[in-house]
């Protein structure tokens, strides 16, 4: 079943013929956190046009744009946020649109007509942003919700593919150390 916030975002983005992938907590069904925010990624070439188009949509209220993320409040669902991410921020040494194509072709699944990133791709995007520390607990919450810790191995593979392994090295080590905390009860898959 599609969450109402995702449905609202989908309605708006379809109206503007934007191709997108849901990449935030809404993409991870098992997390303990039920977020109302919807994070979507668009390809680097579409980002500027998408932001311009959404700014004129009467169902949205533009909040801010910073470091390749634009935030809108969705009037249809009580002001929950729609964050639009520019895929070029995650593509590392490769050409801007490559990460988005990778998401579409290899690291996402379609449910009810909406494309959702895999848990590994969501974790990768969380760890790639400058404020990654904010999202490290969200990864722990996903684990508590039942997402397998082994996904972190896939995060490293994605980083190697896009030449971002060095950026992520310390960040992945940090999260892995947190994953081993004895006070959190979940099955720690072999990595």
């Amino acid at each position, binding site marked *: 079943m599609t969450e109402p916030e995702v449905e609202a975002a989908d309605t708006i983005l379809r109206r503007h013929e934007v191709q997108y992938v849901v990449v935030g907590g809404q993409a991870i069904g098992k997390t*303990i*956190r*039920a*977020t*109302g925010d919807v994070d979507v990624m668009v390809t680097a070439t579409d980002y500027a046009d998408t932001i311009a188009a959404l700014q004129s949509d009467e169902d949205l209220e533009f909040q801010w744009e910073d470091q390749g993320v634009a935030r809108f409040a969705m009037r249809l669902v009580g002001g929950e946020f729609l964050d639009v991410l520019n895929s070029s921020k995650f593509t590392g040494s490769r050409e801007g649109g490559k990460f988005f194509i990778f998401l579409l072709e290899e690291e996402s699944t379609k449910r009810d007509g909406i494309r959702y990133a895999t848990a590994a791709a969501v974790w990768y995007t969380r760890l790639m942003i400058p*404020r990654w*520390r*904010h999202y490290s*607990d969200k990864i*722990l*919450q996903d684990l*508590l*919700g*039942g997402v397998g810790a082994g996904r972190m191995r896939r995060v490293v593979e994605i980083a190697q593919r896009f030449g971002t392994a060095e950026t992520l090295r310390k960040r992945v080590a940090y999260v892995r150390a947190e994953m081993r905390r*004895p*006070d*959190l*009860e*979940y099955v720690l898959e072999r990595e």
Partner: protein
Amino acid sequence: MKMVSELVRSGEANRLPRVFVPVDVRHRGRPPTLYRLRADTESDVEAARRYGLPLFLLTPEWVTAHGYPEHFRPLLFVWEGLAGKVSSSAYSRVHVRDRDALRSPGFEEVLTFLLKVDMLAARELARRNVGKFDPNELYRRVRNEGMEERATKVRLQEFVPGLPTVGEPFPKADLDWAERNAPATPEVR
């Protein structure tokens, strides 16, 4: 060294609620029957608490009621001595070192529990409740749980004077950003 425990029926417990599931039935003259606790609902948790078991269900309603609207699946905080003896199809389990903190947890105890799983929410909750809690009690609870490092990351020392700094705090600018983007305190009508 780690203290471990078993769940066994005490003399005064004549009829046990269904949350106590026998796992190792013994006969007269043998060692007592061992039990596991199965907590799938809030009333299961309440039933177990009535029997004095050290566990607490943290709900989004509690966090929201203290000024920070949150949506999450309730989390079951369990004394670490019962680790592996509590199962649930509904709640993830987080262990608590200090059994006493689970007896009748107030704001300071619950904030410390929250610190284990969502440091930014814990900081925001402390910030929004300055003057309403006892910093000395929060200091004691954070130290009892060994959460100084996570407390330091979110600079909880700003609200708990004297709390030891362990490790590196998150950049202040990042915490300010989180504060600006945190959900607003719900209006009380």
